[in-house]
């Protein structure tokens, strides 16, 4: 129980309550508040204001009438102190996000996602209304729903990019392996992952290739401590500046094998051109060797890919249909085999080149041992299966099975949120997906990603929309949105977008919105106007009237009579306005000799006359 303050100590500490002995939780921290009220403090009122602000009102005993010694100094009889209890933690991003994205960036993302979210909700409501009226579920509209979600997903995905991180002026160095791109963030990576697997129906037939593309963009984020293909290549790039004979370095061949195994064909071909046999003074001696390297490069650049098109700069031979692909693959594998069995290898003088190129050929033939040796992380092995061993894996079950196998072959201890997320997606478990989002990416992600999960998945839809008695009869979707709205409200720069999310919560949203609006401070007229604008948008007439009345009384009591009357007029508070008008008439009638004061009162009455 809260303790009663002792005899008004000079500093005025609030006494902490004592817990039962043996309680595992540590005692709560004690804060000292300087309030400047002369002791004894007879009353203390405590209430939460907006966000993390605690308002403490300390009142001393009332001054007796005609009290002596009204000296030059004013003695504070009471004071209200605002204590900021915030500080650290519970931001809108989760563990992974807060390290990569700073607060102002996150705020930009939060503000940008509001119109997309609002649009999707209004479309959802329109569909529901149409369905309720016509009583026949319109199949065509439901079929189009995923396209709306895709549009929403693309809008938000474009917010998550970071185009400013590109260097303004890029010099094309022929010896770069990895080009400078915009810095990837795990928030964008996870968003794209959800979009690929849950929303984009056009991708269904070439999902594996799309996953390979995703990995190419975000391989650098998979783990912080363990090795990845990206890390291997960046390390080699640093060495490259000082290397004289590139093909003698085992890291060169490791890098080539790694890049080939995850399908970064353009990098492989580029790196092969660093081979010493291309140098003009070596060309004559190492003709066979050069021929072999070039042959491998050509084979790599013509590898068949089961996808409709390739982005510019990427290599491969695209096949749109399965029979085309199978034919091309057979032909290509035949060429690889022919090269492998050719007699030129005996003539190739350089041992490392021979072994390295043969390794690449075995990878192209889909040899599991070579692939496992070339990749570093299970996700890379997973991707390499799609390219070389089982290009037709599309079902979730098949992919999950494959993923489990890869995890067994390459167990990993340092898992980022992305790997956990992918695990949840492949095992078709929306609960795991949501849990992973909450832990690693925060409330913003969860609130917005729920729309992606329910785009086409009946089970997820049901799970998220079912009303659960154990959380007060609201659905999981509403719960997550309320948590996010709470995070928004706790910061004075984002509370104004919380109403969008609160209004989409059918059960408790509007009630909480009213409480939020009534708690906003009324000292500043501009802030009151912002609050009233929100009331107007959400048609909360009685809340706005209350706020105006409170504002009116506040300004009237603090001597700003004109402003007070203005607020009473806005609130159409006839009772108080009549009382004020009466009071002022009486003042004029009395012996008020000051002419200017009369002028002032008549000004006020002039204003009042427009009630």
């Amino acid at each position, binding site marked *: 129980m809260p303790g009663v303050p002792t005899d008004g100590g000079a500093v005025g500490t609030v006494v902490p309550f004592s817990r039962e002995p043996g309680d595992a939780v540590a005692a709560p921290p004690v804060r000292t508040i300087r309030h400047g009220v002369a002791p004894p403090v007879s009353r203390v009122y405590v209430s939460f204001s907006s966000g993390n602000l605690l308002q403490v009102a300390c009142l001393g005993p009332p001054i007796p009438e005609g009290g002596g010694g009204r000296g030059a100094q004013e003695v504070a009889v009471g004071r209200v102190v605002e204590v900021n209890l915030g500080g650290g933690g519970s931001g809108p991003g989760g563990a992974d996000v807060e390290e990569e994205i700073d607060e102002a960036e996150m705020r930009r993302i939060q503000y940008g996602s509001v119109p997309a979210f609002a649009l999707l909700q209004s479309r959802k409501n329109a569909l529901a209304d149409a369905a309720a009226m016509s009583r026949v579920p319109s199949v065509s509209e439901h079929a189009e729903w995923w396209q709306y979600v895709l549009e929403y997903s693309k809008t938000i995905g474009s917010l998550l990019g970071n185009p400013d991180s590109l260097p303004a002026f890029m010099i094309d160095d022929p010896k770069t392996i990895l080009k400078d791109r915009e810095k990837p963030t795990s928030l964008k990576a996870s968003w794209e992952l959800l979009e690929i697997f849950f929303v984009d129906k056009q991708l269904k037939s070439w999902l594996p290739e799309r996953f390979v593309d995703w990995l190419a963009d975000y391989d650098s984020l998979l783990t912080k401590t363990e090795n990845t293909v990206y890390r291997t290549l960046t390390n080699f790039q640093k060495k490259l500046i000082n290397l004289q004979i590139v093909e003698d370095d085992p890291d060169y061949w490791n890098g080539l094998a790694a890049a080939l195994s995850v399908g970064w064909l353009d990098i492989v071909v580029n790196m092969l051109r660093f081979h010493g046999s291309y140098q003009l003074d070596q060309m004559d001696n190492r003709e066979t060797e050069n021929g072999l390297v070039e042959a491998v490069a050509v084979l790599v650049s013509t590898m068949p890919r089961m996808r409709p098109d390739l982005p510019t700069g990427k290599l491969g031979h695209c096949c749109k249909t399965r029979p085309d692909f199978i034919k091309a693959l057979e032909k290509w594998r035949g060429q690889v085999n022919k090269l492998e069995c050719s007699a030129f290898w005996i003539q190739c003088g350089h041992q490392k080149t021979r072994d390295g190129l043969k390794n690449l050929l075995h990878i192209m033939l889909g040899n599991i041992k070579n692939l496992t040796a070339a990749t570093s992380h299970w996700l890379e092995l997973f991707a390499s299966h799609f390219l070389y061993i089982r290009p037709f894996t599309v079902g979730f079950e098949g992919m999950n099975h494959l993923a489990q196998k890869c995890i067994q072959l390459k167990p990993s201890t340092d898992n980022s949120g992305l790997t956990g997320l992918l695990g949840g997606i492949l095992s078709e478990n929306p609960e795991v997906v949501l849990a992973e989002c909450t832990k690693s990416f925060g409330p913003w992600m969860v609130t917005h990603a729920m729309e992606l999960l329910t785009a086409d998945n009946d089970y997820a839809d049901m799970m998220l929309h079912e009303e659960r008695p154990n959380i007060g009869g609201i659905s999981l979707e509403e719960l997550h949105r309320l948590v996010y709205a709470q995070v928004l409200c706790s910061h004075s720069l984002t509370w104004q977008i919380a109403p969008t999310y609160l209004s989409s919560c059918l059960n408790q949203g509007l009630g909480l919105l009213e409480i939020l609006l009534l708690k906003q401070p009324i000292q500043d007229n501009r802030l009151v106007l912002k609050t009233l604008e929100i009331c107007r948008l959400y048609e909360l007439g009685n809340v706005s009237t209350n706020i105006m009345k409170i504002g009116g009384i506040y300004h009237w009591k603090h*001597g700003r009579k004109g402003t007070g009357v203005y607020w009473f007029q806005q609130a159409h508070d006839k009772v108080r306005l009549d009382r004020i008008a009466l009071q002022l008439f009486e003042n004029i009638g009395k012996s008020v000799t000051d002419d200017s004061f009369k002028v002032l009162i008549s000004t006020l009455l002039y204003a009042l006359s427009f009630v």
Partner: protein
Amino acid sequence: MADHSSFRRHPHPFSVDLVRWLPTFGSTGRLLAAAVHDPAASSSHIHLLSVSDPSTPLTSLPLPSRATALRCSPSVLAAATTSGSLHLLPSSFDTDSAVSVPSGALFHVGPVRGLDCGGGTGGEEWVTAGEDGRVHVVAGGGDGRVVARRVWEGKGMVGYQAARWASPAEFATGGAGCGVQWWDRRKGDAVVVQCKGIWGHGIVTGMVHSIDIHPSRKHICVVGGSSGTIFAWDLRWPQQPIPLSGVGLDGTAQPVCESEVWEVLFDNYTQSSDIISSASTRILPVMMCSEDGILAVVEQDERPLELLVEPCAINSFDIDPHNPSVSSWLL
């Protein structure tokens, strides 16, 4: 019509309340002054920013409380605060030589929102009008001091929200529920004309947030206020304000916005669509920003031209007199 230039966005860690172009050039190009507020530390500052890199302030002047008005003259940057003090920073931006008039019984108590420069003989006098109903004229005392002379003590009966000089001896103010007033210092520092304003259908009265007076047509004020109301006040017909935009106003084009109009400025760059007869009867185009995130150009009897629509409020904007570019700052 002005053609749309591109917009650059710069996320800022603090809340930006007000922004103004500075008339002087810095070493790296144009400069902006921004009044910012850090909610975490509850501190407020005026930041001087370079347009090429607005995220790092070049100089910073701390303020005792949140800024409520910001204005630049050719040689001085002035800011007024919510506690009622006025701070003047010379164009050398040396924060040590900043002069301030503290809040209190001799000056203002409470937010000062009306602030403008342009009065007096040299055009260097400042008018301040506050929510406490007081109006002061602040002038340099000659030796670096500033002297504030009280023009009007309203004793709280009126609350002023905006002020603007029209000529060295006349200025206009506007407030909450009392419309706009025209003051003439030659006639004993008194209000000579006032007007309640025209606020739209079903709306009795509103709060004036911003006034602008065209430098070459000093008898016309344009006023922006609550509920999306913008009207022009021609002193030659003082009781017949001309509506430019508003909710439910007859005789205007559709309202450009329905919420508070925070700032209005005469737009020198938008060509009036009716150049031939723009002699003296039509109101020149006016740019405005509002609480529902709209930055637009409004012209009499024309469709408003929206320049920017944002999901959040636009608190303040300014037009660069040297260049047709606008900077606007959002929540």
